[in-house]
């Protein structure tokens, strides 16, 4: 006897569980008036130096903490800890991205009643972190000048999901080492995300950092 093949309408979003948990985390943070920044970039774009500059600029304005997700290493967490800011290291076990469940683990180690701003330093990668909502209240990506102004053509999803784009290492602009065109980059990025906030700066020299810090303090703290 043969049983007939049945078609079952599943109609489920594969990422639904993650999106639900991310939404819950976001509500919890908003109730505590906490801004949580999901910081994404490729490896070497300057996430840690940018974080150090931002922490320095907001030291008197906000109580801060950092959730670090560098793959199986504590190097970045140690660098951040030296500033006196609490840093929680997540071991992602080789995962290419953070998801809401991993961020929830990190938040368990933080005192949410005594914080204004949490940074998540996501895994260095312009592909996977774009797909997974972490529960952050602000998505920020860094593109550094040496990476090139063609990156929106290669990683459109990442550029389309961020609230803020930091163009880092502007001290390279106008040098023989790069032909990066800021206007070309901006046009491409706005094609993917017309309302994105763009800040061009150098975490190394500190040029342009002030605009970012005042925007963050005014709009998110």
């Amino acid at each position: 006897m043969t049983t007939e093949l049945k078609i079952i309408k599943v109609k489920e979003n594969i990422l639904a569980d993650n999106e639900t948990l991310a939404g819950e985390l976001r509500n919890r943070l908003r109730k505590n008036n906490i801004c949580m920044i999901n910081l994404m970039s490729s490896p070497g774009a300057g996430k840690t130096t940018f974080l150090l500059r931002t922490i320095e600029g907001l030291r008197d304005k906000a109580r801060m903490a950092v959730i670090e997700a560098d793959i199986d290493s504590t190097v970045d967490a140690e660098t951040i800890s030296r500033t006196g800011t609490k840093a929680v290291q997540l071991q992602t076990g080789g995962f290419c991205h953070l998801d809401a469940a991993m961020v929830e683990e990190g938040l368990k180690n933080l005192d949410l009643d005594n914080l204004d701003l949490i940074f998540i330093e996501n895994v260095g990668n312009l592909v996977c972190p774009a797909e997974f909502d972490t529960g952050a209240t602000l998505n920020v990506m860094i593109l550094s000048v040496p990476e090139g102004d063609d990156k929106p053509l290669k990683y459109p999803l990442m550029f389309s999901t961020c609230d803020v784009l930091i163009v880092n290492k502007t001290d390279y602009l106008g040098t023989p080492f790069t032909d990066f065109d800021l206007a070309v980059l901006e046009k491409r990025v706005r094609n993917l995300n017309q309302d994105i906030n763009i800040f061009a700066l150098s975490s190394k020299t500190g040029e342009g950092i002030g605009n970012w810090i005042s925007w963050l303090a005014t709009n998110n703290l």
Partner: protein
Amino acid sequence: MHELPVTEKILETALAHAEQHGLSRIHSITLKIGELTDLEDRWLNHYFDYLSKDTIAAGAHLVVIRVPIVLKCNVCQTRCETTKEKMADEKCPHCGAEQRFSILSGREYFIEEMAAK
């Protein structure tokens, strides 16, 4: 690059639906995946075969329907289909506007249906 956790979720969802409907063999699972995502069919299949081998979904076929990237021009409301590679340099085919698009589709991560006995 993250096909493994995604495939785990697909299998878990399919098995739950099979149990709910009292079914004993899953023959195929149809997915709707947006062109803007980075999921590769080859790796979805590879991980699915590996993860499902001792389950009622062993040998099931993954049918991947790709959903195109569709943009809407916020100036003249025209819709146009584009590709991942072209969208950052796209112009509205009707009014020529740039930098004024909304993304209507292309990010789908969806289990549509499955065939089972």
